[in-house]
């Protein structure tokens, strides 16, 4: 038995659109592989359209991958038997707490109904819901249980969403930008709550975010994705303090940081052209270090899967040697 809660292998997702004969295809996720350890927080960082949300949706089985495998404790999540168990194993916290709660149901119903379905409550459902509400800091719980979503604030909604998720006692929680719709001071509360719950319940999180600061605050490891591909993965502090891939550097350089001391001048390549190259490195049009070989041959992730991996020729020597 490995200590991986979740293993993702060669995940691909191709979206097709258009009418019958003329189909446009768009590869949202390309060969993404990673592992999520027990009790670990892995942040997937990328810009909009990088495929990070698509990956999250495939892991929670909201959409089907075009190819690839997702294993939970070694079992494929698309396995027929496992599918019914999935809600009790992997849960999701959505970006928009305003939409994630049905406006027609009370908070108590929203949290209690999944408990009923999965027979998770030991005493009465109401007691368990009150317990869950207290756990996520919606106190006094009695005040919240009969409220409708429109009667509570955005931060409280997100807490209610987390309470619903916790009720199903999952071991992995996929959080898709859980704080981006909230005010910053409320957002940090939610992040702290998630961190506390991880300690308490030994949860593993897959955190999807575009904010490197929150990724560093929450995560043990960070995985940077660009155009559907993993470009860099490694220990959070290492990735933030010593980024290797030019794209990670660009992201860091672009993130507002008034206390920045050393000005690492990375040449910002303006990208009027948002099309992606057909072959070679996806980042070649914007990369200041681009070489001829980057333009033709696609680049693998260099490095060992448990440490640092970078998809860039600059690190071929360095990381391949380590590997050996």
């Amino acid at each position: 038995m490995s200590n991986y809660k979740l293993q993702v292998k060669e995940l691909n997702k191709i979206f097709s659109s258009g009418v019958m004969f003329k189909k446009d295809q768009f590869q949202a996720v390309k060969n993404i592989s990673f592992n999520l350890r027990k009790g670990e927080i892995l942040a997937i960082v990328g810009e909009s359209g990088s495929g990070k949300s698509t990956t999250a949706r495939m892991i929670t089985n909201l959409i089907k991958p075009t190819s690839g495998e997702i294993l939970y404790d070694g079992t494929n999540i698309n396995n027929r038997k496992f599918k019914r168990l999935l809600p009790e194993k992997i849960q999701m916290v959505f970006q928009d707490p305003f939409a994630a709660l049905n406006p027609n149901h009370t908070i108590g119903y929203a949290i209690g109904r999944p408990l009923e379905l999965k027979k998770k409550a030991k005493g009465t459902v109401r007691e368990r819901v009150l317990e869950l509400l207290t756990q996520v800091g919606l106190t006094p719980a009695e005040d919240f249980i009969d409220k409708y979503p429109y009667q509570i604030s955005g931060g409280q909604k997100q807490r209610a969403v987390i309470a619903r998720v916790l009720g199903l006692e999952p071991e992995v929680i996929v959080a898709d930008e859980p704080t981006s719709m909230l005010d910053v001071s409320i957002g940090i509360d939610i992040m702290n709550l998630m961190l506390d719950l991880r300690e308490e319940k030994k949860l593993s999180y897959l955190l999807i975010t575009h904010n490197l600061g929150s990724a560093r605050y929450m995560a043990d490891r960070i995985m940077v994705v660009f155009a559907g591909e993993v470009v860099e993965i490694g220990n959070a502090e290492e990735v933030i303090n010593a980024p290797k891939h030019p794209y990670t550097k660009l992201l860091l350089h672009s993130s507002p940081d008034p206390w920045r001391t050393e000005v690492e001048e990375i040449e910002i390549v303006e990208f009027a052209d948002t099309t992606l190259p057909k072959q070679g490195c996806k980042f070649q049009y914007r990369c200041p270090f681009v070489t001829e070989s980057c333009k033709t041959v696609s680049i693998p992730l260099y490095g060992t899967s448990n440490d640092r991996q970078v998809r860039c020729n600059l690190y071929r020597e360095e990381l391949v040697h380590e590997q050996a």
Partner: protein
Amino acid sequence: MVNLLEINNLCIDYDSPRGKVKAVHNVSFTIKKGEIFGLVGESGCGKSTTAFGISRLLRPPAQISAGSITLNGQELTHLSEAEFDKLRWSHISIVLQSAMNNLNPVIKIQEQLIDAILAHKAMSAEEAINHAKYLLRLVDINEERLANFPHELSGGMRQRVVIAMALALQPDLIIMDEPTTALDVVVQNGIIHKILELQKDFGFSILFITHDLPLMLEICDRIGVMYAGELVEVTKREDLMEQARHPYTQGLLESFPPLKGEKRRLKGISGHPPDLVTPPDGCSFHPRCPYAMLQCKQKEPEKLHDNKGIIACHLYQEGGHRFEQLQTTSEGTK
């Protein structure tokens, strides 16, 4: 430096079914010529309402109920719509967060730019086209893009076009309300640098509004912090980076996970913003304030003007004797 914009005791109210909402309450600040002034705060704090009040974009039932706004010494609140329209674009222009989505999707960029130019300045069609090309060059967009429709441009490029339009008549003041919030950081960074560059070249003033305090600290000369419709602190950037004075500002700084320094737990701000129909007595921040004292609940703090700016907090009211204490408790907030 000369004051370009002076705002004194501005109040903006609107009636809601539950009662009068004081969206902006007694706000006063000045913007000097060539200065970048930032207004920061969380949603509903009144920062955008202030901007809308200055640029006459308030929609009923919201209205300016008191106070004065002067631009270059000219009082704006008394102007008729027609008189204000003459100032629009040539003296004040505004860039909104949603502006990039408000370009007309069925009209080419060129026509939209030229229409905007010709509406406010008399020039020949040819001159207008040349001016439009010049404007696009300013924001680093290839002039061939004039022939494109808005949907053929990326979000970042559309926002650049909007900034170019705002620059068209070289206004003295550009109000930017969350101009880059909807964009990715890399694109945001490019646009911010372009704005700073243009500001240096043309010397206009900017009222920059965002909730992103770190971004604001990177670009603004002075920063005003708003909470629940009131301006609670105005400080120079350097002073704020060294030590935020108002507990709310401190809390706000504590809410952005930093990219540097030792990893430690951030406190954020407990509780949530007050209801503006029934704001709490005394200081509106006291229910969330870690330093709240008895008088905070009873008396609204006065706006204290000192060498560092403006501060509205009881901790600083009596010669600031609690300041030292505050500094020691919040050590390491940076």
